[in-house]
């Protein structure tokens, strides 16, 4: 009887502290959302943490199946996360992504990028050699409309703006490219085989089509169409392939960690690069819609745009677009 009464007294006293918990929750929420950065308030959050730990320990013992305990668990976790991870500011989070996470991922992905690029180039060379030797095989890689157009001595890209306006074209192209890029990454989930397939197939198609148009004397015209957007577009394809390959290798050869832990680490490290890929593909899509098909724009300008955008990509991926932290 005495023990029960004691527990009841403690439980009741504990529940009287609910307003303190609610205050602690509100304070933690203010800090997390970045609405407060007052040092005195921060000290109170630390005090809240101790108070909540004390009350939670009591609640687990005295009120194990109560809503009060559930609520305390949630508030305690929230204050714990606030103290250990700081506030959340979207701008700061994105800045960290572009300034730190993406350049770090690029360094880690460098060997994968070398392999993915090699595979893509070899596949393109194979496609070129195949169609150069056996022109009829182009039917495996290109649509009948494309083949008919080239046989008439015209690139399918000519008059593209008469079919659809630049803006429409841009959105269609960039959406398609982003989806292909994301698939190249995600298909690394199939132990890297999906990524190899997408990279290889795209390389084969590119080489085959180049060989076919070159046979009809249109190779230069196709190169001048591609140069403005292709430098970045093809680089991004290799980059997302490299990210997918990293994920695939982690699944195939997890090392001392478990397979899922290795997969998680690889996906997180390489995944940051995909944000940059998507941003770059939006730019490439706009160039492909507005610049590449426009016959009024001189080849020199297209080359300058292509090279300039490629250099911008290098700066973005290496983190050189932003000044070092200390110099601000």
């Amino acid at each position: 009887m005495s023990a029960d009464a004691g527990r009841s007294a403690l439980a009741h006293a504990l529940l009287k502290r609910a307003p303190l918990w609610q205050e602690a929750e509100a304070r933690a929420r203010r800090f997390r959302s970045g609405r407060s950065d007052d040092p005195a308030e921060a000290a109170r959050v630390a005090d809240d943490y101790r108070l909540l730990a004390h009350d939670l320990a009591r609640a687990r013992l005295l009120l194990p199946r109560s809503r009060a305990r559930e609520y305390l668990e949630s508030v305690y976790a929230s204050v714990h996360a606030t103290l250990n991870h700081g506030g959340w500011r979207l701008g700061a989070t994105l800045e960290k992504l572009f300034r730190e996470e993406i350049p770090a991922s690029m360094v880690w992905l460098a060997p994968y990028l070398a392999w993915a690029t090699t595979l893509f180039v070899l596949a393109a060379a194979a496609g070129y050699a195949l169609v150069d030797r056996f022109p009829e095989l182009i039917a495996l890689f290109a649509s009948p409309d494309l083949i008919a157009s080239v046989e008439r001595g015209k690139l399918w890209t000519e008059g593209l703006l008469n079919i659809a306006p630049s803006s429409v074209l841009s959105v269609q192209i960039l959406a398609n490219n982003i989806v292909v890029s994301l698939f190249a990454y995600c298909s690394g989930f199939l132990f890297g085989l999906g990524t190899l397939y997408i990279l290889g197939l795209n390389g084969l198609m590119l080489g085959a089509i180049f060989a076919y148009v070159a046979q009809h004397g249109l190779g230069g015209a196709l190169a001048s169409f591609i140069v403005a957007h292709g430098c970045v577009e093809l680089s991004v394809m290799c980059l997302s392939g490299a990210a997918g390959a990293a994920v695939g290798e982690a699944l195939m050869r997890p090392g001392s960690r478990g397979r899922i832990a290795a997969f998680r680490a690889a996906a997180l490290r390489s995944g940051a690069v995909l944000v940059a890929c998507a941003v770059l593909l939006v730019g490439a899509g706009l160039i492909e819609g507005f610049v590449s098909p426009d016959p009024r724009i001189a080849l020199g300008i297209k080359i300058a745009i292509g090279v300039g955008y490629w250099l911008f990509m290098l700066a973005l991926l290496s983190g050189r677009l932003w000044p070092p932290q200390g110099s601000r």
Partner: protein
Amino acid sequence: MSEAAPQLSVDSATGIDVTLPLAGAGARSYAFVVDWHVRVVLGLAWYGAAGLLYNYLRDGGLSVAPPSDNEPRWFGAVLVPALALYFLYHPVLELIMRGSTPGKRLAGVRVVTRDGGAPSAGALLVRNVFRLVDSLPLAYGLGLTLVALTREHVRCGDMAAGTLLVYESSSAALAVTPASTAGALDVASAELIAELLTRWPLLTAPARAALARTLLGRCGRSAEELAQLDETALRQALIEATRPQGEAR
């Protein structure tokens, strides 16, 4: 006997673990269905309103039909924003709402990292990119299968991003209000009374009577009234003092 729900347990500096119950396929599906409806409604609402306005300004007609030719302005003002609302809903809202969406909020769940914190922007984006895999072959078949089979109820995107979906209790679930505890003991007194009742048999009769009178005096009982109570009555009064005056479960 029911099996305990799986939970995320994280060490903390205080020595009291942070534990969060993991959400299963039901809560996930509920959140997804709510979010799906929200984004469909938002996308259609934009398409309808912008399309109506566009056609009205163009030729005075009240219609949402697309123009016969590919007009870039219609494409940019009507179709692209509607599609963006639908396809970018999850990644953008999870970024802005720190791992939550309206559907998740309604289902009482949120996305956290394995140490209980808010996921980074990279983790949230990876989680959403892997929806492409989770949605295979159709209707999130792979994702739901993984959620059902894995101990932590995670889909492929969560495995890749190192995230978990946990239940979050809101203060609305707290069935204790200041009114329900009004007039009750303060914490210090309650703890002392509990301690005294526990040690009651170990103390000498005069000592426990004196302590009981002091503590009951703190609870508002008068000295004259307490002086008339014998040892048994004092103990009973202590027990009565600990009884809640209105209580949650």
